[in-house]
């Protein structure tokens, strides 16, 4: 199939719409997705409503559920906030910097037998608007905002969506499975894992009340 014309998404909504189209197919062209995401120039007023920070740790804020094919979310990193070393549960992971910078450290999967330190493979600083890609066959990574003065905001796309992943202890290589939660969904804070109605159902409910 011919690659579609490169259309530069001018807004976050346009980017989301293009991603919906791309992910209709089951074959994902990683470069295509990376290019599309990179060509969207971050405009804070478009994503500000999703950028909810927590004082103590980074937050995950759902933007779009991608018709079940992908999850699009915005992560907010306060000063010094970082993730543990983690995998991506057999999914594609795209990470775009919307504001600030993030340090990505790559690790190999620990040997089943080894009980020593996990050694880092490489490290890089991701700049604003750049897009990084990773999947389990490439390895594991840790993502951190190493700045003591600036916050960072990143846009993540995971396909297929996943709710659990494994985190790794760098000193021993031991892993455990963790469940991932959302700090907010569609711009609404979702504490205590209370499910909120998604937009489709909300529209339905409004209609019923109007009758």
């Amino acid at each position, binding site marked *: 199939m011919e690659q579609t014309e490169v259309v530069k998404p001018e807004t976050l909504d346009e980017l989301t719409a293009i991603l919906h189209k791309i992910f209709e197919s089951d074959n994902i062209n990683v470069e295509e997705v990376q290019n599309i995401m990179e060509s969207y120039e971050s405009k804070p007023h478009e994503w500000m409503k999703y950028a909810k920070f927590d004082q103590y740790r980074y937050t995950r804020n759902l933007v779009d559920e991608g018709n079940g094919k992908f999850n699009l979310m915005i992560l907010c990193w306060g000063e010094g906030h970082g993730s543990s070393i983690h995998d991506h549960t057999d999914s594609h992971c795209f990470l775009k910097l919307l504001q600030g910078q993030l340090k990505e450290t790559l690790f190999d999967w620990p040997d089943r037998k080894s009980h020593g330190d996990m050694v880092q493979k490489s490290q890089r600083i991701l700049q604003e608007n750049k897009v990084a890609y990773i999947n389990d066959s490439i390895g594991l990574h840790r993502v951190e905002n190493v700045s003591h003065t600036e916050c960072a905001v990143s846009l993540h796309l995971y396909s297929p969506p996943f709710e659990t992943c494994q985190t790794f202890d*760098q000193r*021993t290589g031991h892993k455990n499975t963790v469940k991932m939660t959302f700090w907010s969904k569609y711009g609404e804070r979702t504490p205590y894992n209370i499910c909120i109605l998604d937009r489709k159902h909300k529209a339905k409910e409004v209609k019923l009340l109007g009758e």
Partner: protein
Amino acid sequence: MESQEGAAAAATRDCVLDFSRLSLNTFNVNNVSEDRRRDTRQLFLNYNRLYALPSSVSLFYNLELLDISNNGLTTICEGITRLAKLKTLLAKNNRLDEFSLPKEFGSLQLEVLNFSGNRFQEIPLQCTKLLRLQSLSIGGNRLKSIPAEIEYLTSLEMLYLGGNLISDIPPELAHLPYLTYLVLCDNRIQSVPPQLARLHSLRSLSLHNNLLTYLPREILSLVHLQELSLRGNPLVVRFVKEMIYDPPSLLELAGRTIKSRNIPYFPYDMPSNLVLYLDLASKCPNPKCAGVYFDSCVRQIKFVDFCGKYRLPLMHYLCSPECTSPCSSNPQSDAESEEENSVPADRLQRVLLG
């Protein structure tokens, strides 16, 4: 309805004066009308090229928030101390140091103060006088230490000191009753004082990228701690076979006997310095030992299981080598840690060791 909303929006607009990102070399307060100065609650002067803030900023007498981050400021004018209603001062990424603050800076009613990204080598004493301060950030500076006077900041809930040159944590830090978020990452800290266990409100402790080899066992008593970051520390992984143990003195042996046999004593029985000595007895943490110790103790590193996931080296002080337990000799084994040292999973939800 709509006109009310419009008026409210206009009022909000009037309250905020945004002069950020204008490449200003100077800020002329006289360019703002008297009415506007009276109504302004938030003044943004960040991302300019100001070398100085004019003292006439005090004419914004109702100001609650002032953002002068990302300029070239080397001093903060004396006029700022006249802003009686100022609650938030953001001065990140300037060239300020401990000599930059006006003498009466401590008289401000600040609740939030951010000096991250400057050149402070010390936390100025004026800052320790800000009794209403809830949030203090001096990350990314050149601080070599934390003054004991930090304990005066009794309202402090958030303290961010990451990215400095701090080598020690003063035990006085433990006197802050409302501290919930303590960030000390990217420093040169070699040990954590056991007194920090008194920070009962502590929810999040960031210690990654320091020089810690172990933690005090008292850290286990921080019941509200949910996040603890320890990566990038040279934490001991091998069992410390060498146990440094100076045999106890006669004084100590006598003291131990008195305490462990509950021999009663009264102030008129002996010189006051001995009474004081007896009162300082520490109980041996070994649950099978009812003993006490004074100065002579065995320092031993024991590995404690956190939520069944991570093994942390904690420093234990025991009254004698007999109090050590053989099962802790292999930190890499999957054998259970002693019951009393296991921390249940719900206690520490995010130990970001790895």
